[in-house]
């Protein structure tokens, strides 16, 4: 039994709830607070003797069971405390701290239980919070792998959280670890520092931070980061608490990072080396010098032993490569002079060639090289590992860059490899560029040559600033230096005032429209006065679409202008001339009429408009086209006649006189057309007249010859006897001797007879000459000859001459019988007369036709005549060639006259002592 005030205190405290139960769970006592609580929470009014378990059972079976279990436990004699949660879901859960104590009687038998209930919701909340916090902390610690330890400095025990054990890979059996034991795990290198840190911390009551390594029992290395803090009581350190974190992974990562950073650093380093090498290549004008420098940079920065460049050469029998440049680290011997590396044949290293030609890198340890010879060559150079990268120039396998590792077999790092690959590509690109540049330079040189030689000045005009840059030949062409026309204003002032407006307007328009600009103007040159310039340019637009730059070409066309002027002048002169010409004149090029004068219009009936553009050949008759075409092609420049056709289709005789004229590089033909119909007719007449005249002339000529002959004959044959007579008469007069006188008379008679004979012969000849219109008869050669043979039958018989005839081919002739008889008579008697004594005389007569004329051949085998000596005498009067009593020498003369009087001819062929052939050509009538 409690003292009153205590029980009332208890009673009045709302917080303390107390109740007791007997062994059957029936209330034996309870505080009013308990009553209130039960009422408030459970809605139950309790009373002494009520069965709490039953009550609870009615409310919540689970709670009831829980409570019963507790009561039983207490009833079994155990004192304990529990924290219970009561209440249902609807009510805010309340935490009670239940203290269960068994009640004993005096015999120490349990007779009931007393429960002291404290509402500890707050506390529980707090605890929960703490617990939560702890949990979180625990989780966090777990997640962070942070272990917590507490070192009781008094007991020298260290308590570790589970994490710590995990960290240290200790099993729970380790449980407590002493400080000393812990230190044995610490890495020797870090031990002293750790001890010092802790000592300092202890001394100063401060916190220490540490990072140290531990070597775990299983031998692994761990990195530990930790803190430690001293907890004091009354100024004495009593315990130390701290955290540990396994930062091994972090450290490893750090290491990896560091390595990576180093690698990155190295890579950056290499990149900058590459950049430097590349810039060396770019700025050095001589690519070989640049490459040499670049190789050095690469070599020294990559730590390799050799960097070199090979250049290929394509021979008929394969591809060869020669070492061109080398950088050497000094570790192994330089190979630049190695003969094996000059004109090294790829055929000896197919594996290498295959790689390179497919634009892949050849990365090999030398011992892995397949080809024995190739391997040997590499070994001889002390190479352990090698990389060769192809250099491509304009997609051709130009050569390769090689890197030798001579110290050890080394796999090149990815970074290094990509650097070197970049380098190879850069080299290729630079070589291409150099080639390009050279080509460009070549083109530039060609361009300059062309513009220079063509007298063209190139300008570059930058619109915003008004500045103009001119090509180098400005001074030469215009006679002033750049500085004098380096702005557009200066340029303007040099354009001829009269031409300025037009030129500027055009330029402005072109700038507006961003179109091309083509203008000529006079430009003042100090040295040369005003020059005609042709200015062609175009504007370039900026990204706002406004003209900002102009490129153009100026050409001095003064000479052309002058030529043009001249041409224009000459053209107008020509035109005047053209119009004045009485003939038709056409200018044509390749058949097409370019220009025609009025005369041609008049002549052909086509208007000027119709003529221009027309094919000139249309003016000529079709049958003459071939001739005209041929003559045009041949550049025939002599007048010739064709038939022309007018527009109305009428034909006329046309004289064409063409001439080729070179004009502006082309060949233009100028043709004069003349209507020569009249002339043709006249020509015809003239021709006819000519023919007549020719006939007449021939006739006259013959007559003249004959007259000549005649004169000769007269003068000699008549004058001779006459002069004799005169001489004789003189003698007669002077003589006194009768006998002499008689002989003189005889001689006189002889002379006069001669004269008379001559006169008679001449008369005969005259008769022949006069009797051109002698009657012709149809004669058979056979018959006339037969007649003559009759008349000469004595001579024929005497001479035993054989006469052959062949008149079959031309048996007939229309001819005067007398003449034909005379011909036969003379030729036959001559042949008989002049027969050879050495052989039987044979005479052949034959006739045939030739070209419409009848010819007769009279052939004998007589004495013949030396024609060389006497040829010119044969047919002359009184010319004899043989001392023949009967030769009077008039026969041939006669018949020649007869033949010729009728338009024929007679020829002689003869060989002395062989024979003679006379050929008589009778004219066809």
């Amino acid at each position, binding site marked *: 039994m409690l003292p009153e005030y205590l029980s009332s205190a208890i009673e009045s405290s709302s917080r303390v709830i107390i109740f007791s139960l007997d062994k059957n769970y029936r209330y034996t006592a309870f505080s009013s607070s308990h009553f209130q609580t039960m009422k408030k929470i459970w809605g139950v009014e309790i009373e002494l003797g009520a069965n709490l378990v039953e009550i609870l059972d009615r409310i919540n079976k689970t709670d009831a069971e829980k409570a019963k279990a507790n009561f039983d436990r207490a009833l079994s004699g155990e004192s304990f405390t529990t924290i219970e949660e009561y209440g249902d879901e609807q009510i805010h859960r309340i935490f009670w701290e239940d203290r269960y104590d068994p009640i004993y009687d005096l015999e120490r038998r349990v007779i009931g239980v007393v429960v002291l209930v404290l509402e500890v919701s707050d506390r529980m909340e707090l605890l929960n919070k703490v617990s939560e916090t702890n949990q979180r902390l625990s989780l966090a610690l777990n997640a962070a792998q942070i272990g917590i330890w507490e070192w009781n400095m008094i007991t020298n025990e260290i308590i570790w959280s589970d994490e710590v054990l995990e960290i240290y890979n200790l099993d729970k059996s380790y449980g407590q670890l002493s400080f000393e034991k812990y230190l044995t795990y610490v890495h020797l290198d870090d031990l002293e520092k750790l001890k010092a840190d802790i000592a300092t911390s202890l001394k100063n009551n401060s916190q220490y931070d540490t990072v140290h390594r531990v070597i775990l029992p299983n031998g692994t290395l761990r990195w530990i980061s930790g803190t430690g803090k001293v907890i004091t009581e009354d100024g004495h350190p009593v315990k130390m608490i701290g955290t540990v974190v396994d930062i091994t992974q972090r450290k490893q990562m750090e290491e990896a990072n560091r390595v990576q950073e180093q690698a990155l650093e190295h890579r950056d380093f290499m990149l900058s080396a590459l950049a430097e090498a590349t810039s060396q290549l770019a700025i050095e004008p001589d690519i070989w010098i640049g490459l040499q420098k670049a190789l050095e940079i690469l070599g020294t920065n990559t730590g390799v032993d050799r960097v070199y460049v090979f250049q290929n050469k394509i021979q008929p029998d394969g591809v060869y490569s020669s070492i061109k440049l080398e950088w050497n680290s000094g570790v192994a011997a330089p190979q630049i002079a190695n003969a094996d590396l000059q004109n090294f044949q790829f055929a000896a290293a197919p594996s290498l060639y295959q790689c390179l030609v497919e634009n892949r890198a050849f990365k090999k340890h030398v011992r892995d090289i397949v080809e024995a010879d190739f391997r040997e060559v590499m070994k001889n150079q002390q190479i352990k590992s090698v990389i060769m990268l192809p250099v491509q120039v304009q997609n051709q396998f130009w050569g390769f860059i090689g890197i030798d590792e001579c110290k050890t077999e080394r796999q090149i790092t990815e970074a290094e490899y990509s650097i070197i690959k970049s380098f190879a590509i850069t080299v290729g690109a630079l070589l291409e560029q150099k080639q390009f540049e050279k080509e460009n330079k070549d083109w530039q040189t060609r361009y300059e040559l062309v513009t220079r030689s063509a007298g063209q000045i190139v300008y570059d005009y930058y619109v915003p600033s008004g500045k103009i840059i001119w090509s180098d030949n400005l001074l030469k062409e215009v006679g002033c230096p750049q500085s004098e026309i380096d702005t557009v204003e200066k340029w303007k002032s040099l354009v001829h005032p009269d031409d300025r407006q037009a030129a500027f307007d055009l330029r402005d328009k072109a700038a507006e429209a961003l179109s091309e600009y083509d203008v000529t103007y006079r430009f003042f040159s100090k040295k040369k006065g005003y020059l005609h310039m042709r200015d062609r340019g175009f504007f370039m637009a900026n990204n706002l679409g406004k003209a900002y730059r102009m490129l153009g070409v100026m050409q001095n066309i003064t000479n052309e202008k002058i030529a043009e002027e001249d041409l224009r002048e000459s053209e107008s002169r020509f035109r005047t001339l053209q119009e004045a010409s009485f003939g038709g004149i056409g200018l044509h090029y390749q058949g097409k009429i370019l220009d025609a004068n009025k005369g041609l219009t008049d002549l052909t009936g086509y208007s000027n408009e119709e003529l221009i553009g027309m094919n000139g050949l249309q003016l000529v008759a079709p049958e003459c086209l071939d001739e005209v075409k041929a003559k045009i092609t041949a550049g025939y420049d002599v007048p010739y006649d064709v038939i022309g056709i007018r527009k109305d289709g009428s034909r006329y005789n046309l004289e064409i006189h063409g001439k080729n004229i070179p004009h502006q590089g082309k060949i233009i033909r100028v043709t004069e057309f003349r209507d020569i119909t009249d002339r043709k007719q006249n020509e015809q007449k003239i021709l006819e007249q000519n023919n007549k005249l020719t006939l007449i002339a021939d006739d006259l000529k013959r007559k003249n010859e004959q007259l000549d002959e005649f004169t000769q004959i007269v*003068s*000699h044959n008549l004058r001779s006897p006459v*002069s004799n007579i005169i*001489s004789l008469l003189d003698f007669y007069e002077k003589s006194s001797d009768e006998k002499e006188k008689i002989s003189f008379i005889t*001689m006189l008679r002889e002379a006069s007879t001669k004269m008379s004979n001559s006169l008679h012969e001449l008369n005969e000849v005259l008769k022949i000459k006069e009797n051109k219109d002698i009657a012709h008869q149809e004669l058979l050669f056979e018959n006339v000859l037969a007649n003559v043979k009759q008349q000469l039958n004595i001579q024929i018989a005497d001479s035993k001459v054989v006469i052959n005839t062949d008149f079959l081919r031309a048996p007939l002739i229309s001819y005067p019988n007398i003449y034909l008889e005379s011909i036969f008579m003379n030729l036959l008697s001559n042949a008989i007369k002049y027969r050879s004594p050495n052989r039987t005389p044979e005479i052949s007569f034959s006739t045939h036709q030739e070209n419409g004329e009848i010819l007769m051949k009279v052939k004998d085998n007589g004495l013949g005549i030396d024609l060389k000596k*006497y040829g010119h005498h044969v047919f002359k009067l009184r010319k004899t*060639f043989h001392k023949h009593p009967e030769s009077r020498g008039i026969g041939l003369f006669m018949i020649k006259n007869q033949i010729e009087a009728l338009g024929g001819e007679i020829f002689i062929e003869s060989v002395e002592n062989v024979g003679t052939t006379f050929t008589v050509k009778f004219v066809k009538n």
Partner: protein
Amino acid sequence: MPVIALVDDDSIFQFTATRMLESAKLARNILHFENGGEALTYLKENSLIAESLPDYLFLDINMPFVDGWMFLEEFTSLKNSLAKQIRIFMVSSSIDPRDLNRAREFEEVIDFVVKPITVERFSELLKTG
């Protein structure tokens, strides 16, 4: 007195000329030839005998066989082998200027004489020749 040759086919001229030359005593000896051929033959045969060769030769143009021109042509090549220089007078009854010109081509032809020749003419020619 010179030896004179008459080369002419006209027998009457031969007669009258001879008569004139003898009566005028203009020639030591007179040689007669009917045509050029005969004259040439004689000259060839007597080329080395100066006394036999004529000093003067009267040559007719119109003769049968070898006429005056033919004679002259042959004579041109013959004269250098002759023992004597012979001067020739061209004789004709015609006055054809062509004959005159042609005669001038031959340097041995001293003159051109037209028939009939009078005795006076003969002596004239032989004096100056």
